[in-house]
């Protein structure tokens, strides 16, 4: 029955011209929207008070917040000074600020110092306020190595202010226990020959203390990535520059 009636309507529409269909549709839309508008007005008329109350409930606090802050500002008594007082106070503030600025500037080393960004794996070499060189480096991988003996090693570069403790040329790496454990090898005795590796740290090494070094690398493709066991790796050219620029006692800032 329903399918028949739908078919009949479909046939009628099919026979109608397009303009006719549009006209019918517009008539239906206008009449229905008129009805909706009528209903809306009726609703507004009946619930006018309620609607007003709802609006005020939100409007009054918003206005109050604005007005209160204005009143607070107006309430402050303005200071009135004569020209002499203005000049004296101004001079005092300027002088005090200048003194503070001088003290602040004195905190920055005048000689070479190194800044390491362990997040983006970049270093910046400065002399005073002047940037000398910035390039890629490698810092700690943040790997926490655990073995079955409940031992664990955290491979991260420490953050803060450090000083160059010592400088060496052609450094030899004395492999610690974790280097063997990481490679799945048995740990040899403290001064066993297999602990000593030549040429893996590059031509120079700068000691930051607590076993952390700034050194070269054989794995140049990993520069700019967090891959080290906590040391700072540089390419050969940058290592030479830093070795020649920094002296024992020079500051290294790592963040």
């Amino acid at each position, binding site marked *: 029955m329903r399918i028949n009636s739908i078919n009949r309507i479909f046939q009628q529409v099919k026979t109608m011209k397009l303009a006719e269909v549009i006209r019918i549709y517009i008539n239906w839309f206008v009449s229905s929207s008129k009805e909706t508008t009528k209903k809306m007005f009726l609703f507004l008329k009946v619930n006018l008070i309620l609607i007003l109350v709802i609006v005020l*409930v*939100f409007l009054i606090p918003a206005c109050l917040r604005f007005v*209160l802050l204005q009143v607070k500002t107006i309430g402050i008594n303005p200071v009135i000074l004569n020209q002499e007082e203005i000049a004296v106070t101004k001079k005092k503030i300027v002088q005090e600020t200048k003194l503070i600025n001088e003290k602040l500037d004195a905190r920055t080393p005048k000689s070479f110092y190194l800044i390491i960004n362990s997040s983006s794996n970049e270093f910046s070499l400065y002399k005073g306020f002047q940037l000398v060189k910035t390039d890629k480096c490698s810092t700690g991988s943040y790997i926490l190595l655990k073995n079955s003996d409940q031992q664990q090693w955290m491979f991260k570069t420490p*953050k803060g*202010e450090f000083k160059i403790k010592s400088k060496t040329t052609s450094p030899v790496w004395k492999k610690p226990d974790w280097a063997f454990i990481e490679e799945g090898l048995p740990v040899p005795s403290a001064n066993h020959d297999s602990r000593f590796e030549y040429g893996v740290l590059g031509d120079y090494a700068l000691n930051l203390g607590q076993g952390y070094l700034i050194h070269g690398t054989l794995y140049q493709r990993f520069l700019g990535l967090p891959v080290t066991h906590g040391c700072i790796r540089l390419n050969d050219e940058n290592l030479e520059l830093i070795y020649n620029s920094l002296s024992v006692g020079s500051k290294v800032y790592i963040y």
Partner: protein
Amino acid sequence: MRLFDKLSGYFQNTGLAVSIIYISLCVIFVFLISIAIAPLQKLNEFEKIVNSDSLFTSNYDNNWNYSEFSEMVKYKAYKEAMLKLSKKDSIQLSVNLNDSSIGLYINGVNIHQVHIKLFKQDNLLNELSNKQYVKIFSEPVKISSQNATIIKEPIVVRQAPKDTIEAALIATEPITLTQNPAFIFLRLEYGIDLFIEQDSNPDFHDNWVKFSHYAKFNTSKILNSFFRFITFKKQEYYPTITIKIPATDLRAIYRALPQNAFVVISLKNNK
């Protein structure tokens, strides 16, 4: 008694549903009013902090309240705070909205500096008097809590291999290269909130992370306000500063900051 009769009569005529709506509206109104006056209470709190420090009050030169000195006094306060910060040997943060820069410092040495692309400063902070400003911002402000969408230390736990064959199998590219969208929230001493956002959100994931970061914060804020309202406690107001910087710098700053770090702030002088 007459009033009560009138009211009960009114409620009977208008019906229970409408009465409930009106009562709810009254409650909402009182709730919103309590929130609306919260900034004023915050200003009073700042004033109390100033008055409670008798040493500061006695040393403060009242001529500094002169409107023309506002900028100079605020700059001096910032530099004073920087000098005090330079005596701390851990990594600290400096936010200077006057020259749109944010930087990291160790012992007074600037180790990282970024240009702030965009920032928004709470209107309440513009209303601080010179005296209040100097008291609050001439010292490094302690970070009381930190919250972020990125982790401070991207630690990867790795079990030691049993032999060289297993070691060769687990030797892979660094895992820590995976980077998440960065949004940071720092709550400072004196109840000031500092939001640091990455300056661009290129894909849907970034926008979604931003939305959920703020949704989490706003939900707890609304719930806290509501809880305070029903327990008849004073509403809290946290003036906010929102900053946008590149994501790589944001990660570097967040990862560098220790748990109990200090911040030095220089607000934009809008007076």
